[in-house]
Every structure is written in structure tokens, then in C-alpha cells.
């Protein structure tokens, strides 16, 4: 019964038949959802918020887009970064697997800190290597 109620999902409503819902990373959201600024929040969820109030960057004054720092060609760096991220996103089900001798490390907030890091045999933040 639960499976047969796709109408609950906004993602599904927005999809055409040729553009299926795909969730390779298992977070319950469609992987095709755009996130152009790569902040982890899909653009469609930010759009409503942005139209209702000033952008976050505005409230901070975009302090890093002024003066000498801007001369570092941040856009160029970020375009290379963004290009790699798109490829990396497509392979997120290839980069990790969820069993084996290090299983259990993936549970939790996923930043390598806290209890999970300790129980996995290495203590504290940054145990996962580079």
C-alpha cells in the first residue's frame, strides 16, 4: 500500500515518464535534482526561501567577493571544481560500498566525527584518511 502512493513525493510529480526518479545515494531524494551552488540543498527548495527574504549572501555582504581576493579568479577555480563534482556525483554509488571490514562507518552524520569514528577503530575527527 505504501509503495503504491507515489503521489506523496513531489519529485515524482515533477517527473515525466522518460525521466525516472533515481536515488543512488539512498537519501530518499531524486538524484537529478539540481544544486547549482553545490551547498547540499537542492535549488528548488532554496527558491521559495530566496523569494521570501533577502539572499543569505546578501545578509553577509558577500565579504569574499571584494578587493584583492576577487582577483584570484575564483570563478575559474570553481568551474573546474564544479565540473569534477558533476562527474563525482554520477559515481557516488561507485566510490563507497556498505559492507566489509569497515562497515558501520557510514552511519551517522557522515563527517567522520563522533561515536562512529571511535567504534570504527579510529578515534576522533578525520579518521578516514585523505
Amino acid at each position, binding site marked *: 500500500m505504501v*509503495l*503504491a502512493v*507515489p503521489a*506523496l*513525493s513531489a*519529485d*515524482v510529480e515533477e517527473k515525466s515518464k*522518460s525521466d525516472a*526518479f*533515481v*536515488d543512488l545515494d*539512498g*537519501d*530518499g*531524494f531524486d538524484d537529478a535534482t539540481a544544486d547549482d*551552488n*553545490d*551547498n*547540499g540543498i537542492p535549488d528548488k527548495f*532554496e527558491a521559495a526561501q530566496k523569494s521570501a527574504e533577502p539572499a543569505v*549572501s546578501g545578509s*553577509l555582504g*558577500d*565579504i*569574499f*567577493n571584494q578587493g584583492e581576493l576577487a582577483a584570484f*579568479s575564483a*570563478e575559474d*577555480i*570553481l568551474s*573546474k571544481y564544479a*565540473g569534477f563534482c558533476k*562527474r563525482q556525483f*554520477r*559515481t557516488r*554509488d*561507485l*566510490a563507497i560500498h*556498505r*559492507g*566489509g*571490514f569497515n*562497515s558501520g562507518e557510514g*552511519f*551517522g*552524520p557522515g563527517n567522520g*566525527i*563522533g*561515536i*562512529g569514528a*571511535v*567504534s*570504527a*577503530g579510529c*578515534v*576522533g*575527527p*578525520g579518521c578516514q*584518511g*585523505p
Partner: protein
Amino acid sequence: MKHRGTLLAFILLTSCSAFAAGVNVEFTAGVGATNNLVNDSSNIYDAYSSASVNLKAYPLSGLEISVRGDNTYYRETIGLSSLLGGLKLTYIPIRAKSPLSVFLSAGASGRLYHNEFSGFDNNIAEAAGSIGYRFSPGVSARCGVSFKSTVYVKSDIDYKRDFDFFAGVNATVLGGNSFDLEAGLAKTDFTHKDNVYFVDSIPPGWDFPWPYRMWLLEFVGQSENDLTLFYCSPRYSRSVGFKTGISLMYTVQNFQNYHDEIVYGFSTQYLSPWASVWEGQNVTVNLKSYLVPQCIVSAGAGYWDKTYLKTMETRHLFYFQAKEESARRDWQTRIYMGIQWPLALHSGLLLEPNATVEYMKNISNKPLYNFSNFAVNAGVRFRL
């Protein structure tokens, strides 16, 4: 740690230079506290702070070179404080729109602890390769291999080498229901304590006096075996409402060729690589939500039933004492909740404060491992 200020200044200077040279820079810093640092009945409280810098360069399309430095400092158990340095190469040769995807990576890292834990100083080398194919918009399959070698440079544990193979399929059915099934084999070399040569030479039924057993102990040697683990893990995920996603995952994993061999313990050496090696099953449910404006809220709960390798602890004076004891078995419950607040600036820079709380309750057939643990963390990530 006396030169922390100098180190911080050096990292900042290096990072600014790297940014100017066209390298992506990411900083993270955090503080945390736990009421059970080593996850046993000792209930050792500690607080820690951490800082890391990650420099990433993209010399070719699809290639990322990452250099990382990491410093962790514990307030009470200072010996656990450590420094990590590492290099990693990731190559993804095929464009995202292709139905075929290939992932290749290789890396090396080294971690240094303070003097009292320097036996756990280690160097890690790892490599992985995997391939995936999208048969249709809603159906894809994948497989891959990975290798990880951990060398304990000052310890008699010496090394641990893991090989993994996995394969999986992902399919979407009935609109927005995603099913994922993954299975794999993992193999590791392991050195275990062994007196098999002497036991074999003793006639069955003979009961030797203690002094002879003690003499035997002197000749307990070490042998090397392969340990194989098979796992299978189905997962179901879907959206619930407009801004919330949920996933339910079950994993079962079993040793294939384990015959009660004894490895070094981890009650006092919890940094041991064997702390994460177990057979059993677990089920987890995870939730992710964008309901809080501009924030990512995640939460999860999980239950584990784990049986570990037999271990020789410091309380065991003799080898046979460890041999006669049953293996450690744990029934563990964990819950966590976290919130991230990513602030994307117009120039593409990202500032992300985050905080998490976690709770773990562990019940074990060994009284030493009956414990609970509550931990809080707060940090910030900054990407230039």
C-alpha cells in the same frame, strides 16, 4: 601542540597561496565532547578539537588531486591527539551524461600519535576501481574492487591488508520507490596467536599440569591466515512529503573461514584494526529533511547484532584462557541527529556551520562492554 598558533598561521598562509595558484581550499574546524571515549565500561569523559585543511587541484578534466592535513587534540587523553597527512588522486574519465561511469582512486596517508600511543602510528595505502552502467533511467548496476593496506610502523600488529569486491543493482519501481541491493566479499590477511604445533603433538585426553601449560605459553607463536567476509545489503528509499527523504537498510555479513583464531585484543588497544571486524546483522533507518529553511537536518537510528573475533586481552595471562572464552557479542542501538547550515556566498564560497548529537547503548556478553555513550559535536566547514 605547543606550536599550534604557528601551525595555524602556516596553514592559513599556505592555503591563501594555494588559492591564489588556482587550487580549491577547504577548511574544517570543530569541537566535541563524549562521556565514553573508548566505548567500554570505563566511561572516560573527554573533549576534543580538530582542524583540517584540504587542498584540491584539477589539472585535467575528471582528475582531482587532493592533499590533506589534519590535527586532532584531546583535552584529557592527550596521547590520542594525532596528526594526519595524506595525498589522494581521483580520476573519473567519463562525462556525467554517459550511461557508463568509471571511478578510479588511489591514496596514501600517515597518522602520528603522541608517545604513549605511538604503537598505533600507521601508514595507509589504498586504491579502488569501479564501474557502473545505466540500463534505463530507472535501472543501473555496478561492481568494483578496492584494496587497503595499513602498516603499523612501530607495533607488533605489523599490518592489515583488505581486499574488497562488491556488486549491486539499483531500480526504481512504482514511481518514486528506489530499491538497491548490494553484495560483496571482503578478504583480509590477519596475524593471530597460535600454538597449534604444540597442541597437535599432545595426545588427546592428556591433562598437563599448569607449569607445562605455562611452558607452552612461551612458545605461542603467530600465524597468518586469510579471513573472508560475505555481506548482502538491501536498501529501500523514497521521498516522504515534499522536503523529506527516508531510507531503510538491512545488512547481514558472515565470516566464511573463521575457526576461533585469536587476535590481539582491543579492550585496552581500542585503536586495534579488529574493533571494526565483526559478523552479524544490522538495520538502520535514516531521515534527511530540508524543512528547516536553508538547513539540512539529518537523523537516524540503527540496531546492530555483532560477534567479534576472539581476542587476547591484558587480563589473559595465558593463551588457553583466551581460547576457552567465548567471543564478544554485542547488541547495539544508536541514534543521531545533525543539522548543517550551508551559506553559499555569491562568489561561490561556502561557509557551513554544523552540529550533531549522538547516543549509543551497547549490551554485551562481556561485562566490560556494557556501556552507553553520548556525544556532541559542533564545527564549521569553509570552502574557498
